């Protein structure tokens, strides 16, 4: 075969690529499949082939108070993180879009840093702060950690939507005698609404799953991932598969909702912009 590919070679190349893609998807989904299958396996976590289909692990799970307590804690943490993330992320996006101040570039990078930083650094640096300030570790410290790390999610989402807002609309509103407050609620906010909801969903999901930062900032009360972590270290049971399957289904539903909003909001930008490198 020379450098010029014939039509035949080309088709073969495409078939090879398709087979490759199928294998890669198998690799990506194998763990999820194993989780779900073995959550219904009567014989425990390992062992092939699985046998004795059962829902026993799910019923055990529903009687497990410690798990449900931690689920409640995780929801509280996630909701509070959403509030912090939005309360600071939205002004930050407005500031980046329309104000100029010294250190703006540095500020932008700093806000984004926790997303690309290993969680251990965020967690430990805040742990030292709380120790120096004599703050007792509790769910509140976890909330501060999650909220701070996830501000950037709201900032990037909202900033992207502000970039698409035509400034003349706000100008017209101001010219016609509306004040900044009215202009914000009648023009700016409705324009940002979808991106705010999307950011909230994203922060919620990320916070619910977060473990590295929580690991260092947790007090007596566990969040769900830390409760699971504690059990993993004691030995594994299919109960963990069952709760993992439930978490998986929930994250899937949240992501679907988020994605639909994303499509309604625009169309041209890829999702998960938050993970893009520092601008």
């Amino acid at each position: 075969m020379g450098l010029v590919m014939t039509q035949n070679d080309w088709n073969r190349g495409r078939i090879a690529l398709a087979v490759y893609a199928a294998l890669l998807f198998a690799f990506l989904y194998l763990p999820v499949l194993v989780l779900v299958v073995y959550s219904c396996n009567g014989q425990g976590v390992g062992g092939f082939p699985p046998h004795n289909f059962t829902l026993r692990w799910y019923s055990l799970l529903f009687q497990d108070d410690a798990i449900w307590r931690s689920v409640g804690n995780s929801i509280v943490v996630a909701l509070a993180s959403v509030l912090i993330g939005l309360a600071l992320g939205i002004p930050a996006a407005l500031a980046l879009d329309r104000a100029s101040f010294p250190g703006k570039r540095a500020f932008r990078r700093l806000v984004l840093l926790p997303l690309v930083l290993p969680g251990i650094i965020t967690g430990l640096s805040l742990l030292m702060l709380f120790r120096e300030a004599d703050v007792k570790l509790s769910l509140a410290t976890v909330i501060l950690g999650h909220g701070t790390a996830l501000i950037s999610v709201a900032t990037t989402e909202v900033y992207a939507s502000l970039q698409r807002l035509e400034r003349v609309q706000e100008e017209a509103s101001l010219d016609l005698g509306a004040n900044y407050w009215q202009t914000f609620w009648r023009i700016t906010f409705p324009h940002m609404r979808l991106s705010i909801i999307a950011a909230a969903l994203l922060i919620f999901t990320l916070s619910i799953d977060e473990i590295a930062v929580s690991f260092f900032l947790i007090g007596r009360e566990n969040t769900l991932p830390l409760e699971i972590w504690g059990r993993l270290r004691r030995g594994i049971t299919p109960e963990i598969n069952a709760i993992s399957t439930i978490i998986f289904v929930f994250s899937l539903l949240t992501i679907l909702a988020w994605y639909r909003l994303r499509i309604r909001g625009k169309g041209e930008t890829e999702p998960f912009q938050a993970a893009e490198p520092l601008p």
Partner: protein
Amino acid sequence: MFSRAYKTWVTLPPLVWVAAFLVLPYALMFAYSFWSVSAAGSLRHTWNFANYGQLLGREVYRQTLLRSAWIAARVMLFAVLLSYPLAYLLSFHTRKGKDLLYQLVIIPLWVSYLVRAYAWKTILGTDGVLNTSLQYLHITTHPLHFLLYSPFAVVLTLTHIYTPFAFLPVYAAMEHIPRNLIEASHDLGASALQTFWRVIVPLSMPGVVAGATFAFVLSFGDFLAPLLLGGPSGVMISNIVVSLFGAAYNWPLGAAISFCMLALVIALLWLSERLEKRWAWS
């Protein structure tokens, strides 16, 4: 058009928050790294370089640092190599079902990190899914012990976790390549293979650099996968930090190591940004 007051009100709160909960903690980490712990276990606020001296001088830290870098480098390589062909297939050779396939790559990203690491543990264990399947199919007679509690298990799990991460920027870079460049290349007589190597690969480099940086940085600092799957031979630098902040109780030394990690990560991010800019076109 926005008044001074407006700008102050949107700028000040996030600025103050970031100063209090990001800048201050990092500065504190830096300060801690020069302090020490007395025999009685109380913190001594005396300034010296002893922690950094230990970090450079003690064999165990150097070795663990190298091992972490080596694990992270393998994860980075595999994540990029695995995701590149898929991104290429999706971006250039898929018309129907493109969105669906894209979603299928993203979804595993939203499965809890812990859940995925745990799933690999149940797959790789001595009585795990893989070993029992191999024996069931009479491929092996005894369980393979090297699968779990080894650097291999850590690399496999982290590769699984960070492949979708690496995929995103690579795919985004490919989607931004103007299609008329591909047509021009064909019109000028280049074969598909030549077009791939001379047009698509160079133009997708910024995405590759971004994806590689994510994969390296995030797996370099990981401590949960090594704790769960690594065993004694899979200990990474963050595990040492965790023990220094826990049972070993030497926060200042732990802070010195974390600060070096922070500096390394920032240096890598800076480097990758430079590379992305250099290789970006237009």
